[in-house]
């Protein structure tokens, strides 16, 4: 599902949250809420930020579109291209590398049959190697949505993939 298939409008709950977040800053400083609001937008509008979505966020926040684009392209958690429904962000920095992050990445690549940054044909999965996620003592690990999956093995990843497939 891409953002063009649906009307771009925050759900009532999300709009309420967006308004609350903008209200957490002094008069005229509501741009501070942009990063959180982009997370909300990304989640609601198909897992990535199309230029239409970014324009919509700019409109809701009364910002210039460029102010949204420059933020969306700076931070690694925002996607400006479509991704799989589930994205595995596998930490591959130092401490995770010691514990076999590379093997894990190779396993995921083989298991999903797609290279880093690509999406499976059914649109279900993408994966990428990312830098330190702050779980160094629980390595190797990956981030999936809002959760961390820690002390991973190839078997545990296989199990995770099966679980997610069956969830549909």
């Amino acid at each position: 599902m891409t953002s063009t298939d649906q009307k771009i409008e925050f759900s009532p709950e999300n709009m309420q949250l967006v308004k609350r977040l903008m209200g957490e800053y002094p008069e005229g400083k509501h741009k501070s809420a942009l990063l959180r609001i982009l997370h909300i937008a990304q989640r609601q509008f198909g897992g990535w930020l199309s230029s239409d979505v970014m324009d919509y966020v700019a409109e809701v926040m009364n910002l210039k579109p460029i102010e949204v684009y420059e933020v969306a392209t700076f931070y690694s958690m925002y996607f400006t291209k479509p991704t799989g429904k589930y994205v595995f962000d596998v930490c591959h920095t130092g401490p995770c590398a010691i514990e076999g992050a590379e093997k894990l990445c190779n396993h995921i690549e083989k298991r999903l049959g797609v290279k880093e940054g690509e999406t499976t044909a059914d649109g279900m999965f993408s994966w990428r190697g990312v830098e330190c996620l702050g779980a160094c003592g629980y390595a190797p690990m990956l981030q999936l949505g809002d959760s961390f999956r820690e002390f991973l093995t190839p078997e545990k990843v296989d199990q995770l993939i099966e679980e997610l497939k069956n969830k549909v």
Partner: protein
Amino acid sequence: MGRKLLIDKVNVPGIETYDVYRKEGGYRSVEKALKTMTPDEVVEEVKKSGLRGRGGAGFPTGMKWSFLAKPEGIPRYLVCNADESEPGTFKDRYLMEKIPHFLVEGMITSSYALGANTSYIYIRGEYMWVLHILEKAIAEAYANGFLGKNILGTGYNLDLHVTCGAGAYICGEETALLESLEGKRGNPRMKPPFPAVKGLWQSPTVVNNVETIAAVVPIVNDGGEEYAKIGIGKSTGTKLISACGNINKPGVYEIELGIPVEEFLYSDEYCGGIKNGKKLKACVPGGSSVPIIPHFLVCKTAKGEDRLMSYESLSDGGFATGSMLGSGGFIVYDEDQCVVRNTWNFARFYRHESCGQCSPCREGTGWMEKVLYKIETGHGQMEDIDLLWDIQRRIEGNTICPLGDAAAWPVAAAIRHFREEFEWHIKNPQLAQTKNYGLVAEKVFEMAQ
């Protein structure tokens, strides 16, 4: 057993809730400060405690607080840096996840001391579930009269909000964090002006690490002098250390500053020794930015004294034979680890995280990554080692923010202590693909500055 001031109650069932936290003595520091102390008296206690910033730089917190400008009619802000992203560091996450009210309490007491009426916690975007834990704790604090208007009937008002990043190591640097908190790209600012004068929205601002703010709670409860009795020399109090790598017991430990590194590394109370009975090869004691030290300099200094877990002892010998306490991200490497590969890995990290503002860092981090990759994959030449040394030397000190230094130091230290391993890689390109070099001999290479 060392004293624990921050995480002694993490295992109390329900401690993440207000009711249990309060029953366990929580929010006493707010009551004490707001009802019986002036803001300046709180600052004075923090000065007496000798507390130093726990995010990595180790700057005295009381002094940082006293630099805060107080112009009439302009709001002041306290911002908590919860952007923990230094490889090897996962201590703040532990504290916030397990005992969120501790940080909320610290924020209230510290905000009062600084005269801030609005404060923010900026947490890295990847810790989104921790953000929700904190928001829940904050809502409970509002509901119980510890946040909002006229707190505890004292006339002090404070609003506390949480916001998040979206994946950028650079936002742990305080001016980049402020840019990000203003809803912009995380490009560090030129200093001066320092945040204490012009910070968030150009208003006077203090930015402190999670653990620093948490430490204010016991300092106010028991007094700065009591706090300063713990530790050694100018390393007072306790410190959270996140230990990882090839050890038996990775995890977060609260130590009294000044315990021997040997005890921390080998005793069952802490790391429990090297995993699988292997030998220690090297250690990065304070997060990926600090110099890696070879096995013979980990537990002893170059002078042959016991190395201690303190700011001074870990940096004893300077960068020639020492390292830094840094953020407390303690990474341990056993004899099977490859220093060239690890250095390449860290170089890739810094290349990815460079914001791109300053040429030495933007170009230099990528260049170092490429040269290191070349050596690691068997295509290196002897002059590459000197080239690496030259690049790191030209980055260090020549950038707006310390990310440049942080990228240069690991490369410099690896060459300084493990030059023969780099040479071995270059001389044995085939063998190095299947075998690791092992331990290095006990010598330090003289490097031209």
